[in-house]
């Protein structure tokens, strides 16, 4: 489930990003601009794919949250940054700056540290947990 989350989240964002770039600058005011913008946004295919992907992400996220601490899941979901970089590097041949790799390494370290704590601390029986 965390895997689904970590893959669908960034995928949705990338698709949305692509779609929004395609739409161009957002006009929000006056209202007539908002309407043209909304029309352009909601007729884009990659935006709908992005929304679907984010929806799958959200369901997976909610399912994980049904048994794990929020303060456990939220840091874990940041592995997505690593997935994005890795996908970009392997599939699209994007260059990833050293600083970014360092950041990803620190994220992984942080997630590792968090993953060694108990996933759920709100259970009634406190003995031996943490």
């Amino acid at each position, binding site marked *: 489930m965390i895997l689904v989350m970590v893959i669908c989240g960034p995928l949705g964002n990338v698709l949305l990003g692509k779609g929004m770039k395609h739409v161009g600058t957002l006009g929000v005011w006056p209202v007539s601009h908002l309407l043209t913008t909304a029309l352009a946004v909601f007729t884009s295919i990659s935006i709908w794919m992005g929304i679907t992907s984010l929806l799958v992400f959200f*369901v997976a996220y*909610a399912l994980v949250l049904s048994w794990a601490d*929020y303060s456990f899941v939220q840091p874990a979901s940041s592995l997505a940054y690593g997935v994005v970089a890795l996908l970009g590097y392997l599939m699209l041949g994007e260059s990833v700056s050293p600083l970014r790799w360092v950041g990803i390494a*620190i994220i992984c370290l942080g997630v590792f540290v968090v993953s060694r704590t108990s996933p759920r601390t*709100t259970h009634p029986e406190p003995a031996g947990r943490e």
Partner: protein
Amino acid sequence: MANFLLFSVIVLAGTGGELCVSRAMKQVGEATSFHPAHIVAVVLRALRQPWMWAGVGMMALAFFALLGALSIYNVSFVVPVTALSYIAGALGGVVFLHERINFWRWLGVLLVAIGVTLVIVGKN
């Protein structure tokens, strides 16, 4: 001041919304299997939780605030601010969900926030 307000909305409504969703899911109870019918049942039950709607509403608000901020500032300026939400999320978990965060989890959350900031700074 307006900027500060906008960024506060992004961080607070975003994490606040996720905390509400988390609370709703705790009320729904543990999802025990990955069977599609079971997942649908859990989702339907979740949609009946008031906290779920409060959460989704706040997340939508944060999303539009983020879009608004992105149309005014560079991504490289906006997104590091959202790394703050890891700290806000952990605090919210303690206060709102009564999660008990020990030293190691704080350390991990801090590392993740630092790492996320570096990833975003290293993008350009």
